[in-house]
């Protein structure tokens, strides 16, 4: 069983938490997420031009790069996380250029060596899969694809082809940290996706509060929270772990018990 299989067990929705690597004391921050009950960790690779991100994650990228975070630093953060948390699935999320800079083979091998389970690349759609997909799959790292409100039935097979780990449903056409989609449309989309794949479906973009997370967890296999956590790192700096653990605990409780509440 892969770490993803365990995290997305059928009877309990998973909480997926995102932080930008190199922003604040990342090791302590990640530990706080796990202590709070996060089931999957997404570690953002900082990039100078985060085109799909809203102000909160843009600022985190700049803070991290401002401190001189390198790709090797990100991989080291991943490797050390894996050593401390052997069971928690770890996903690297970011943009194509830093991932392919030294060649996709280099990146895929380094990620695998660091104990990374999956990679989400915002700007490599299925049409450009040869740029990164084969290298990841050869190294046993899942390529986690994004599906969006604009991915129609005709595109879905291409999106699913070669994807692994889980399917990330971006619930709004837009950037991170902004609007929230209506539950009805999310449920419809998740049902459509689940009819087309056996992969678990996690829903993200615009999820900030335990209430929102619980609502989505009723209809999805996982809920992704990013900007709300990243903002805590921005606000609290070195004191962030305590705040992160608090919010994560509330989110995890909401997500994990959502179906009981609904029933």
């Amino acid at each position, binding site marked *: 069983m892969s770490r993803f299989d365990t995290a997305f067990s059928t009877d309990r929705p998973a909480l997926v938490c995102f932080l930008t690597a190199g922003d604040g004391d990342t090791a302590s921050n990640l530990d706080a997420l796990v202590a709070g009950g996060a089931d999957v960790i997404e570690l953002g690779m900082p*990039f*100078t*031009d*985060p*085109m*799909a991100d*809203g*102000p909160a994650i*843009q600022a985190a990228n*700049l803070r991290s*790069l401002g401190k001189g975070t*390198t*790709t090797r630093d990100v991989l080291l953060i991943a490797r050390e996380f894996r050593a401390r948390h052997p069971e928690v699935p770890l996903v690297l999320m970011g*943009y*194509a*250029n*830093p*991932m*392919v*800079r*030294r060649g996709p083979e280099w990146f895929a091998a380094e990620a695998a060596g660091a104990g990374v389970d999956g990679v989400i690349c*915002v*700007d*490599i*759609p299925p*049409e*450009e899969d040869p*740029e990164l997909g084969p290298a990841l799959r050869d190294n046993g790292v899942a390529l986690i*694809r*994004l*599906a*969006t*409100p*604009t*991915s*129609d039935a005709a*595109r879905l097979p291409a*999106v699913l082809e070669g994807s692994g780990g889980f399917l990330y449903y*971006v619930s*709004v*056409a*837009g*950037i991170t940290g*902004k*609007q929230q989609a209506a539950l009805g449309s999310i449920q419809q989309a998740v049902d459509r996706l689940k009819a087309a794949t056996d992969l678990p479906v996690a829903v993200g973009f615009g999820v900030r509060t335990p209430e929102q997370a619980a609502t989505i967890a009723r209809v999805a296999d996982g809920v992704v929270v990013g900007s709300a956590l990243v903002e805590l790192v921005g606000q609290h700096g070195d004191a962030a772990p305590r705040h992160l653990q608090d919010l994560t605990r509330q989110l995890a409780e909401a997500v994990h018990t959502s179906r009981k509440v609904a029933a």
Partner: protein
Amino acid sequence: MNQQPNSYRTGPDERGHFGQFGGRYVAETLMPLILELEREYRRAKNDPAFQAQFDDLLEHYVGRPSPLYYAERLTDALRENADDGMGAQIWFKRDELNHTGAHKINNCVGQILLAMRMGKTRIIAETGAGQHGVATATVCARFGLPCVIYMGATDVARQQPNVFRMKLLGAEVIPVTSGAATLKDAMNEGLRDWVANVHDTFYIIGTAAGPHPYPELVRDFQSVIGKEARAQMLDRIDRLPDLLVAAIGGGSNAIGLFHPFLDDPDVKMLGVEAAGHGLDKQHAASLAGGSPGILHGNKTYLLQDEDGQIAEAHSISAGLDYPGIGPEHAWLKEIGRVEYTSATDEDALKAFQLLCQTEGIIPALEPSHAIAAIVERAREMPRDSIILANLCGRGDKDIFTVAEALGVQL
């Protein structure tokens, strides 16, 4: 389409690639729209009514064809420093005489017609110098569509006259403060707007870059420059030029001039990037100082560090101040069909003044880089040879920048 072997003009392939460059590196949200744009562009390309409307607007609204001009006094001035029998004739394609003062309008006319064909009701664009922003605001006013222009806050400050022009034309100008607050950041913000508004919004990209099919369609719209110039040359002197020269920001005026000549084996081509403070300092010459990478929807040469973080470009010319270049140029460099060089801020400033004084033409700082390269090349070429350069913009917008650089208080 007939697939000519040994042609440089058949790209991109069906996946939008020019060799290893180009492609569609965009978020999934944009992918369906990009594919729809491609389908619609294919239909428009084969629709005589679309072509007729485009041609009509270029003739009566933009003022095409632009003149082809023999710059006699510049030619003579450059011959003064040349050996006997040397010193090429300098000719200019006068795209600075277009409505709005640059070549950018050619592309905007084409793209807004496409936008309306697709039923889009809102236009967004990024701009650096403000020339593309002004051209976009212009066509939006002409067709009555709301227009949002993203412009780096740094550029807003250094291009005030163009900001005011855009506002007069009814556009909303949004200063972008993220990153270094220049063109690259404006493009990021444009893409962010687009993913959130795909249902009704058309993004008019200002150069021959971005995800496929933009590099192709911008090139096609700008190719009017080269098609006219080729016909005008044959008409006037019954021969083709020996060397084409154009400045390169993203590469749209250059590819527009070059493309119709690519299969003329005796026509050499020179693209001129901005060397800013110098290639060993801060500059905007992605081919000379960059390496292949992925940004803003395409794979191309980028100024970047060893981790793939994008570097800040610098050029005195806001229109060249971008750390990337269109993918077709990356390919043309790699296969060796086009030669690329660069000119510094200082070279461009000298060339700017030279053209003012010898020809009574105030060029934009962008084509001043092309003129700087000509100063070098003309004297190495015999007198009966011909250099044709794209005078792609006029310098009204730049007089404040130039005054400051020359230490003049206005």
